């Protein structure tokens, strides 16, 4: 963690309401936070706690109902409607995401080349010579232990889930955003490839110094990777602090229950408390 903490992404009173009247659902309920530059943050919650809605708001994919988001100290302005789309594009140069399901993250009609070339174009490298572009793509692929030569003529569905997720990291490597939001990046891949993906994300973060936000339901993973942990319940943050504080010495009853429910290997798993 850097000595002087500069807030990278913050929010005050952030709220998202779906529906109205009797159908009203408050998915995210007046959330405040400060995410600092270069930190690794985890947002942990059960399904339906509003994690993904929060992520979508931070990415600017859905509008906020109330509250403000501040990016690097300035109020975020994405404008309204299609004529302000360029503002979003500018914003997305700074914040990028990896989603849970690698299979649905790609355009199935585009070859892998096109996926990576798009990233280069987005960083303003559209006019570079072809050889330079290929060198960049090869570098990105080798960063995630993929071979560019084997991938060039393939479509995303020809890869396995783990490879797709790694390619996603290769995209991030080319884009070099300030913030990476990883929404359950490992929940659809099995335990042995999970370690590989995590290693790569941490290596990438070390190289670029970006802020990493993990959204997960896996408390073990949150504990392993993050500096600070936020626990989310019904759209609210019930507890936050450093990973050691929150996971090893939880104060709130909800957090305690959540941690108790995870099967462990060195401690007895108490089944009587359901």
């Amino acid at each position, binding site marked *: 963690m850097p000595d002087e903490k500069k807030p990278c992404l913050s929010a005050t009173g952030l709220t998202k309401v779906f529906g109205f009247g009797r159908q009203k659902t408050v998915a995210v309920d007046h959330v405040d936070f400060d995410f600092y530059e270069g930190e690794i943050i985890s947002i942990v919650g059960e399904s339906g706690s509003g994690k993904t809605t929060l992520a979508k708001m931070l990415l600017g994919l859905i509008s906020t109902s109330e509250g403000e988001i501040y990016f690097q100290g300035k109020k975020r302005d994405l404008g309204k409607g299609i004529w302000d789309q360029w503002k979003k594009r500018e914003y997305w140069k700074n914040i990028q995401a990896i989603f849970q399901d690698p299979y649905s993250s790609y355009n199935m009609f585009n070859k892998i080349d096109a996926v990576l070339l798009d990233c280069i174009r987005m960083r303003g490298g559209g006019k570079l010579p072809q050889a330079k572009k290929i060198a960049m793509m090869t570098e990105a692929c080798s960063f995630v232990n993929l071979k560019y030569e084997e991938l060039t003529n393939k479509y995303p569905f020809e890869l396995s889930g*783990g490879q797709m997720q790694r390619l996603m990291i290769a995209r991030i490597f080319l884009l070099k955003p300030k913030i990476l939001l990883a929404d359950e990046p490992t929940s659809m891949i099995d335990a042995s490839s999970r370690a590989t993906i995590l290693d790569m994300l941490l290596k990438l973060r070390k190289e670029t110094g970006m802020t990493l936000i993990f959204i997960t339901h896996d408390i073990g993973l949150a504990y*392993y990777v993050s500096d600070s942990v936020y626990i989310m319940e019904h759209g609210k943050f019930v507890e936050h602090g450093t990973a050691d504080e929150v996971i090893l010495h939880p104060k709130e009853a909800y957090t305690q229950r959540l941690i108790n429910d995870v099967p462990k290997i060195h401690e007895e798993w108490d089944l009587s408390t359901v």
Partner: protein
Amino acid sequence: MAYVMLELKELTTKYITRFHEDVYAVDHVSLKVEEGKSLGIAGESGCGKSTLALSLMGYYFAPLHYTSGEIIIDGKNISGMKPDDIRKTILGTEIAYIPQAAMNALNPTQKIISFINDVIQAHDPATSKKDCYDLARSVFENVGLPAEVLQKYPVELSGGMKQRTVIATSVILSPKVLIADEPSSALDVTTQKVVIKMLRDLMEKGIVKSMIFITHELPLLYNVTDDIMVMYAGQIVESGTAQQTVFDPLHPYSKGLMGSIIVPEAGLRDHKLTAIPGVPPNLKKPPAGCRFADRCKYVIPECKTNSVGLHVLEDDKRAYRCILPEEELRRYYKNA
């Protein structure tokens, strides 16, 4: 030695693809499940865990085909039976299967009770509706589900509730072996715990006699089952008690797998996760030697040419599939 409920002897099954290629997804698998015990099967996706579950029911439908080996349930060999006979006499009463997406097994236009009626009457058409209801009610209450669930439609139930309903339905005729194929992977931790508690209750109350539990989550497996088998590319690479396989793995693959466990416990942040490099072999053309050789750290030239058998250690249950002797492997792990 306790009574053996289910035994597989060198079971081999294959998939035949559209292009007439054989994929050996289950390759000479032998295992034993004793009465009152549970067996866990671990392994990464695509290693044949779910195919093994389908194969050991004896119920084959294309593209899955039976090749060789024996399946013995409660002293009866079912490996040569016709699919129709299996469905009528074996499934439900001898073996029950909980699929991965159990919640999709329910018919949205049918009440739970009528679904259960169908299940029971498929085995004994003479059963009256009243008897079905009484049986369903007693099983549901035994496993801690309210009887009102029976009168509901699937859409009225939550995900965890649906999963438990499907489990209760599949054990309604008290099968001898229950196969649970990732029953909790779509659920969050709290619901998962409820489902696991239910499975354990079923075992304790004697509604099911023995269980095979399939998952890739090792901490869960360690807490649920008595024995664990690790599968890799269609073969069993290691077997032993849960304690042995998790804390003292012998095969390099299981060693790697155990090193990737993440649990929220003190001390986790200090140890480095081990990732296994590479990808599993293509099962259309399995390598001649050890199937793990390409990804193994301790590979020697003989690994790629000699086929490797299962070494059974003295206590009969513990076995591993590696060319290297036990002492040498332990020495490697100690120095690593």
